[in-house]
């Protein structure tokens, strides 16, 4: 179980190797990458920023939650910071588990909770040279309307 906010290029194969073990029969790797289009605008790159100490803490909490729910998953997650070009990986989550269903569920849980709870922001750069902080709560696409957590 390991998670980190990093500035280096992400290596999905290394994270997969890190969770692999003979007790597991399945591994799922999720990779988030910089897409050339967002909300219909042509993107040239994304700058990621984080409230690093809290992001590391929250991400660690999430992967431990996922591991506990799954009953035995090994999970490694890294989120990259800084300026990323098209196709570059911003986040990699690797999960291994004796069985495939919990491996899929844990990987999905980590990315969904990461997007909901881990304090990371991104500024998109567009072909016209402008750039903008992305606000998923204001986005027009139906998939991004889920809001952030309200603390109790």
């Amino acid at each position, binding site marked *: 179980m390991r998670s980190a906010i990093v500035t280096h290029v992400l290596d999905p194969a290394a994270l997969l190797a890190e969770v692999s073990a003979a007790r597991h029969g399945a591994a799922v790797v999720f990779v988030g990458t910089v897409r050339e289009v967002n909300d219909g605008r042509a993107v040239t790159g994304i700058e990621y*920023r984080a*409230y690093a100490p*809290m992001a590391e*803490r929250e991400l660690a909490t999430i992967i431990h939650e996922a591991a506990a729910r799954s009953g035995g998953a090994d999970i490694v997650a890294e989120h990259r910071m800084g300026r990323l070009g098209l196709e570059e990986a911003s986040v990699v989550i690797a999960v291994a588990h004796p069985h495939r269903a919990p491996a899929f569920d844990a990987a999905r849980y980590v990315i969904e909770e990461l997007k909901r709870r881990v*304090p*990371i*922001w991104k500024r998109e750069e567009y072909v016209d040279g402008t750039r903008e902080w992305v606000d998923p709560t204001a986005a027009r696409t139906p998939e991004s309307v889920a809001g*952030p957590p309200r*603390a109790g």
Partner: protein
Amino acid sequence: MMQVTALLFASYAEHLGRDAVSLELPDGATVDDVLRHLAALPGGDRLPPEPLVAVNLEYAARGHALAPGDEVAVIPPIAGG
């Protein structure tokens, strides 16, 4: 009186032109008091009325009572992944 630090990020830091603000608050002050102080600063009107807040790296409600030295982070809409 006590001193706390408010942290601003991303679009919020741009609205206020800074990423940290030191505040002197009366004992018993809450997250809400920090938000009121920030709203009164130049550019503070561009903060939303109920932003997400964390105190010492944990999400906290508006009524959360602060202690001296607390780090109060005002968190813009999360966009990781």
